[in-house]
């Protein structure tokens, strides 16, 4: 279980995230909802060790306190972060991007097995393995980014806005893949601006506003919640 308590992250004197607590239980797909600047990306970065959390914050995962670990040790603990904006290695081939996702695995046969699994999940990538990742369409680049995170074979996958700036049809494909990943038992923490589509595949959700948690509950309940409908679904 991933259990985040009283997470506060400051950039200088600005508190981007204030006293946020949430958890992802085994088997769950949890969505973080919130507008741009609500603090979703900052939370992800703190959990995966890219941005230091303030004193007093606790990020517990698999019996370890993550806030004192390096990003590399966090990857080794079974947590993989697919960052906002894809962050591919644009000049490297799709195949190299994916294989680098399994950088911490030194068993060639195992890497090959994981690669086959990722290609099964994202068939369009099969024909593009030798192309530079930067040459792919937005949707395919997103597949490479998610695939690269999966190559670490994580127990929990953090997905930061995987559907941003994609065509609606591609958004559906990406989220369907996310649901499929979750069905195999991988825990997922997903952040989305596309609230309706995300709540449809999630078990539970948290709503962030200005760096604070304002609401949480089962996905079905949040979908019916007036405030969520007004703020995120234009209803």
């Amino acid at each position, binding site marked *: 279980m991933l259990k985040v308590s009283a997470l506060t992250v400051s950039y200088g004197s600005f508190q981007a995230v204030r006293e946020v607590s949430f958890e992802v239980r085994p088997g769950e797909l949890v969505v973080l909802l919130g507008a741009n600047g609500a603090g979703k990306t900052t939370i992800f970065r703190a959990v995966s060790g890219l941005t230091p959390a303030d004193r007093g914050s606790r990020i517990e995962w698999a019996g370890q306190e993550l806030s004192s670990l390096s990003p*590399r040790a966090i990857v080794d603990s079974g947590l993989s972060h697919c960052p906002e904006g894809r962050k591919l290695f644009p000049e490297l081939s799709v195949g190299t991007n994916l*294989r680098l996702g399994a950088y911490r695995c030194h068993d060639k046969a195992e890497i090959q097995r994981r690669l086959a699994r990722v290609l099964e999940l994202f068939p369009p990538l099969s024909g593009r393995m030798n192309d530079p990742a930067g040459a792919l369409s937005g949707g395919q680049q997103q597949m490479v980014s998610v695939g690269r995170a999966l190559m670490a074979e994580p127990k929990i996958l953090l997905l930061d806005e995987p559907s941003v700036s994609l065509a609606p049809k591609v958004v559906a494909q990406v989220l369907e893949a996310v649901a499929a990943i979750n069905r195999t038992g991988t825990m997922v923490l997903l952040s989305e601006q596309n609230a309706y589509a995300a709540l449809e595949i999630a078990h539970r959700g948290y709503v962030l506003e200005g760096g604070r948690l304002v609401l949480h509950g089962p996905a079905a309940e949040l979908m019916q919640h007036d405030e969520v409908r007004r703020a995120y679904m234009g209803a």
Partner: protein
Amino acid sequence: MELFAQQILNGLVTGSVYSLVALGLTLIYGTMNVPNFAHGQLFMFGAYLSYALVMRAGVHYWIAMAIAVVTLAIAGAVLERSVFRPLRHAPPLNSMIAALGVMLLLEAVAQNIWGPEFRHTDTPYGGIVSLFGLPVAAHRLILLGAAAASMMALLVFLTRTTAGAAIRATAQNPEAALLVGIDTGRVAMATFAISAALAAVAGALIAPISLVYPAMGTVVTLKAFVIVVLGGMGSVTGALIGGYLLALAESLGGTYVSATYQDLIAFVVLALVFTFRPAGLFKAAV
């Protein structure tokens, strides 16, 4: 015609040195955004070590080169750890000033150990061979081959191995590199070591042809920077081709235009590139 052929050969010899030094410079710039002004001094140390081992300790030429390469690789790693690592999160100007400091320090150390005199190194390939009727010093051919082999080895390493992919990945997106579990600190150290080793290869190769003296690195650093800008900052292919191009332009320009202005050619080329292709001739890609 023979003059022309001779100048082409001279260009390729100088180009080998330029490319080897510029490759290291561009690798360090690409992965760490540090303009290592001391890179020519690493080259100078490679030349001096080779000189000292061959001429004073009587070590065989190739063994001397191997020792120089290993020593410089270690020195490069130490330099990264002790000077540039602590400045990683500081403003870029700090690393630049540190690099200038290292440059002055290395030159002073060399002068202190070996004195300001010009030194000459012997080579086991002192003879003259005939290449298509052209008389050529054998060591020049050795230099061309060894430099090409080193660069080939670097390219194979960067494109065919996981460690090479980790270096390129770190250059292209350091944060994503962290997220897949790459230790970017170790990548920085390895990059410095590899770059210093390439500079040592260049220094040891050129020692028997040109003279060895404490300031020999300064001009090479300047030229290497021109090449790195010419080729596109951080581009490996750009540095490789750019080194040969610049040296050829210099040797042909020096012969057919004016020998007095030979060293100026690099900077004319630089001015032209800045004016017409500010991003460099080749797109930045490690």
